[in-house]
Each structure stands twice: as structure tokens, then as C-alpha cells.
């Protein structure tokens, strides 16, 4: 008796589950990579625009000579995700607010955004943009923690979603395969039927239901195919002559002959091989004598 169910032994569920898990993993991975790219790009664009807007405003106040206002606006920005801000003007104005940054600005002639790593490998966006009015520049270093947090959150949701999705799909597959197992004659037969059933290797015949299964899967047979199989299974291993088969399976058909047997053996083999490629070897032709049934394993 097999402890492992036939459907599991055949490995269909394991293969299907593996395919689902790999496909879902790939899909979620691709989505997350794309999402992270979009989030980082969007954050970078917004930060550059933020720096440019500040540079425009700071420039207009510096033209008016209101350095105090620029200092206050810079201080306002540093209270948020901006780690540090510098306003450098050729006229001698040099405003610094926030943390000290050791690295030199990436460039001052055009808007430049560079990703830098902090001491704890945290990501910073270092943006430098020119002050249009004076030839100076504004440098803004922004903590990317919020965008990275959004990416981590998406990754968590993606992973949980993938697990739930996989579990659901695998559950459905298991249910579908279990549905197939219901057709398994050997596992669903009542005690009375089980007592009558004929088992030859992986081949099971339940006479009370005129049903047969092979390797745990139901065989869909016509009455004549079933009759032929029953004859051969009545004594597994014994060679049945064509005359014996004709009298047992075609008792009321005087016109049946060896060609009919040959055709039905062919059809039976095809049914068996549909379930398992080596199923066709279950029925063995013994040249010059007839046919016999192997045990099918």
C-alpha cells in the first residue's frame, strides 16, 4: 500500500507548484525592480525641482539684499527631509544650514544630482543647482529614507501578496488534482467493491461499476475495450488465444475476428499510454499465440 497518494507520487502537484512559485517570484521581482526605479527617479526629479525652486526664490531675495530671509527659508527646509543646505553667492554670501557635508559639490554650473552613501550606508541625494541671478549655487543634500521606505513597503506587500497568491493557486491545483483522484477506482471503491476489484500492478478494475483505472487515473473505456481488458485481467500473465478472447469478449458477434481484437488491443494500449507512456506495454502480444497482461509496473 502506498502511503504517498498517487497524484503526489506522480509529482504533478510539486512540478505545478514549483512553476507557480518561480513565475510569481519572477513577476514580483520584475515589478519591484521597476517600481523601485520609478520611485527613485520620481524622488530624484522632485528633489531637483525642489532645489531649483528654492534657488529661484533665494536668488530673488538675495537680489533684494534680504539675506536673513534666505537664511530663514533654508532653516525651514532643513527641518524636513533635507539634511543640509548651502547657498553660496559670489558676492560673499555663504549660508549653511544642517549637517556638515565633507564631499565637494558635484558641479555648480548646471543642476546635478548625485547619490551618496552615509556612514551607515544610508542613501543621500546630493543636488546642486545654480543661482540664476548671481552665478552662485544652492546645494541641497536630501535623505532618501522616505522613498526607500516606500520601496521596502512595496517589497513587503509584494512578498506577502506573492505568498498568498501562490498558496491560493497551489490550493486550487491540489483541489483539482484531488478531483482527479476521486476517479481513482482503488481509493474510492466501497468495501464490497474493493473486495471484488481486480488489481494488476497499477491497473485496477472494479466489476461492480464496470470501471477501471491505471496509475491512479480513471480509464475511459468503451464496453468492448472494458470487456477485452477484463478478459486479459482475469488471469494476469496467462496468454489468451484469439479464440478465447473472441468467445469471452464477443460472445454474440459471429462476425468478429482477429482484426477486431487487434484494433481493440491497439485502442486499449493507446488509452493506457495516454496515462503513462509505458502503459502500452501492459498488454503484451505473444506472436502466434495471442495476448497476455503484464502487471503494468
Amino acid at each position, binding site marked *: 500500500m502506498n502511503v504517498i497518494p498517487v497524484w503526489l507520487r506522480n509529482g504533478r502537484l510539486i512540478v505545478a507548484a514549483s512553476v507557480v512559485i518561480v513565475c510569481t517570484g519572477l513577476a514580483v521581482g520584475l515589478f519591484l525592480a521597476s517600481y523601485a526605479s520609478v520611485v527613485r527617479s520620481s*524622488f530624484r526629479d*522632485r*528633489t531637483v*525641482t*525642489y532645489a*531649483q*525652486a*528654492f534657488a*529661484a*526664490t533665494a536668488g*530673488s*531675495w538675495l537680489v533684494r539684499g534680504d539675506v*536673513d*530671509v534666505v537664511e*530663514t*527659508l533654508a*532653516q*525651514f*527646509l532643513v*527641518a*524636513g*527631509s*533635507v539634511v543640509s543646505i548651502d547657498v553660496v553667492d559670489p558676492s560673499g554670501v555663504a549660508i549653511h544650514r544642517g549637517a556638515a557635508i565633507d564631499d565637494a559639490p558635484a558641479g555648480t554650473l548646471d543642476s546635478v544630482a548625485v547619490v551618496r552613501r552615509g556612514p551607515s550606508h544610508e542613501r543621500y541625494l546630493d543636488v546642486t543647482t545654480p543661482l540664476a541671478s548671481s552665478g552662485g549655487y544652492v546645494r541641497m543634500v*536630501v535623505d532618501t529614507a*522616505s*522613498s526607500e521606505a516606500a520601496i521596502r513597503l512595496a517589497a513587503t506587500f509584494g512578498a506577502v501578496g506573492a505568498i498568498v497568491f501562490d498558496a491560493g493557486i497551489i490550493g486550487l491545483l491540489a483541489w483539482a488534482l484531488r478531483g482527479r483522484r476521486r476517479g481513482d477506482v482503488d481509493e474510492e471503491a466501497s468495501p464490497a467493491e474493493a473486495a471484488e476489484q481486480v488489481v494488476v500492478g497499477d491497473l485496477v478494475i472494479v466489476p461492480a461499476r464496470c470501471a477501471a483505472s491505471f496509475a491512479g487515473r480513471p480509464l475511459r473505456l468503451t464496453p468492448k475495450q472494458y470487456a477485452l481488458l477484463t478478459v486479459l485481467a482475469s488471469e494476469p500473465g496467462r496468454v489468451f488465444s484469439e479464440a478465447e478472447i473472441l468467445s469471452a469478449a464477443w460472445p454474440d458477434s459471429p462476425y468478429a475476428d482477429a482484426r477486431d481484437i487487434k484494433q481493440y488491443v491497439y485502442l486499449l494500449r493507446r488509452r493506457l499510454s495516454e496515462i503513462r507512456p509505458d502503459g502500452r506495454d501492459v498488454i503484451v502480444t505473444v506472436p502466434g499465440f495471442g495476448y497476455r497482461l503484464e502487471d503494468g509496473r
Partner: protein
Amino acid sequence: MRQAWTVIAVAALLAGLAQGALGQAEPPQPIEQRLAGFADRMRLSLSMASVAVFSPTVSDAHGQAQRLIALLRGDARDGIPGLVAEAALFADWIGSRPFDPEPRRVLLGAATNVQALLRLALDAAIAANRDRALDNATQDLLRVYAYLVAAWGKPIDGVVVPGLETLLRGFDVAVAA
């Protein structure tokens, strides 16, 4: 912590811009001087809103919105009037003066517009401070900016909703008359 800092910073800035006009012990300022201080704070609000619109994170947008709220609503504890309240004072002042009917109508209309638009800007800033999504906060901050620009009332190709600029130009004429 951030809100406390904001209040302190805005208080210090307003004190500097208003040049002591707000203290009880100071003598009352001439209306023109007060209007000039009001215009400076309007300019500061516009600067802040123009930067706030591009806030890269929700927390930045909230921080900027809080500072705009502080500027527009003021701080009653420190006796700092907000722009909304001060715009109402201008309307009251114009209403109490014996101006000629036409300048009076124009100035009163402009002061009323400024007050109404600043109140709308305050509502939008409060909404921005409550938004959880950056896009929504950005939209509300954009509304703040738009209302502040409208309150300033700069003519574009001759089209204008009378606002602060009308007050700044009209006051000299009306007061002189």
C-alpha cells in the same frame, strides 16, 4: 518639536519684518508702513509656497504647510497677527476713513478680496497639512500658491482681481487725497 520650532522661527521672522510694529509697547505704525510690512510677509509666504509645491516627501509638504498656516493664521499666544487677520484690519481701516466714494470702493473691494483669498489659502494650507498622499498635499499647496498670487493681484495683460498691489498703489493716492 517641529511645530514648536516653526512657531519660534516664524515669530522671529515676523518680528523682524514688522520691525516691532506688533508689540503692545510700540507706538502704532502708520498704515502705509504696516501695509509695507504686510507686503513683505506676503512675499515671504509666496516664496515658501512656491518652494513647498515641489516638496519631495509628504513630511516636507506638511512642514511647509505648517509654516504657511503659521504665517496666515498668526499666533495668538505671542500676539502675532496672521495675514488673514491683518487684511481684515485694512478693510476696517478703509471703512472708517472719509475717502472719496470711488477710491473707497476700489480699496475696500481690494482689501475684501485679499482677506477672502488669504482665508482660502489658509484653508488649502490646513488641507495640505492633513493630506497623507504627496500628490494631494502638492495639489493643496498649489492652491495655496494660487490664492496667494491672486491675493497679490498682479495684472496679467490688464486682467486683474484687485488685491494687495491695488492697495499698495491706491493707498498713497487715497491717503494724500
